């Protein structure tokens, strides 16, 4: 997937990679950040999407 981005939780540094997704959370590989459900919570610390920042890759 081109232009795949990485997002990181500001609280616990959990990394969400658009290319990898999180299959065990029901988010298939290749899911763009904007398509991750709004009520999704960080699997490590339960912060919401607002608490993630995009990282340069």
């Amino acid at each position, binding site marked *: 997937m081109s232009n795949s981005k990485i997002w990181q939780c*500001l*609280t*616990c*540094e959990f990394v969400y990679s658009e290319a990898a997704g999180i*299959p*065990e*959370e*029901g988010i298939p590989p290749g899911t763009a950040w904007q398509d991750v459900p709004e009520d999704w*919570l960080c*699997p*490590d*610390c*339960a*912060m*919401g999407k*607002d608490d993630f920042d995009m990282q340069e890759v």
Partner: protein
Amino acid sequence: MGYSMKPILIIGAGHAGLSLAREIRALDKAMPITIVSQDPIQAYYKPNLSKALSMNKSADQLIMKQLEALKNDLDAELLENTSVLKINHEEKSILCQAKSTDKNEQETFELPYENLILATGASPIEMPIKGASGNVVSVNTLQDYTQFRKMIKDKKQILIIGAGFVGCEFASDLSSSDYQVSVVDRAAWPLEQVIPEQMGTEIKHAISKNGVKWHFQSTVDEIVKNNQGELKAHLSNGVIILPDVIISAIGLSPNIKLAKVIGLLAGRGIVVDEYSRTSRHAIYALGDCVEYDGQPLPFIAPATLAAKALAKTLTGNKTKLVLPPQPVGVKITDYPTLICPPRIKEGSWQVNGVDQDLEAAFFNNKKELCGFALSGQRISLKGEYLSRY
């Protein structure tokens, strides 16, 4: 919408206190917030304390935000190094004292509140071992960790007492950074209270690869320090260990002293209802200092969820706290493990899988899933397990 001048007053600036302030600020730009903390106020992720060596980070590098940045982000008044001596719940104020070596600055002062939130955390359980006092360290705050890193510098032998989440992570972290680690626990396998023996055995082997020596079903009988300052630990299994540093990782006890003085209902932790309310008007509590259904839940996610719900309630949108089953990752080098601790004791484990790739489900007597643990490749089954609740 107008506000009285009295703030939301939060005691404690750990994950619970800071998250609550952040969530309130996200919902309300104007509500005054004050945070009082007996420690320096810095944002850091506490679970990283037992992982920092593997992350190649110093204690300072774990700090995510310093005081000034937090003041700015939260638009709150932050009083660090300030002890709370007393809560005057009838007048709705607290009595504080700044920690200072300067006598003139040691005077006490009062802070009024509209709503008071106790986010006082939990402290290491004191070790009932002969000779432990002064010779055993606990790592529960960033300040503790800074001291700890100084202590282990150029040292080799570390003894960890306790093989729970923190003890196992420290054993893994220290041993993969070339420390010689011994672990003592009265249990029969690591994390005995939350995983079955088969998985415990795999964890034991995984951590042993870096030379960790385990002493299960054993306790430390006595710790002796000689004139040269060298430590000697006598174990109940007859083994004698000569550690440079001894870490206590036997667990935490909620900080409920302030709450008890004013008669707040408390068991092991402060008792709260589904709105995080304590037994007194305008006083709430969340994080490691509370208990839910009689149980403290000293993990990050419950504190985050409590902060989110309470922020809504305090800003006028009364919201119940819902705590879904929440798996916790255990950071062990080369052995990914995810544990959703059973919230009950009565029941039995069912284990499937081979070698490192295990799935363990804990069922109560009615055959309902009450907890699980996944390791290795089976971690990918997390979503499936959660949907079975």
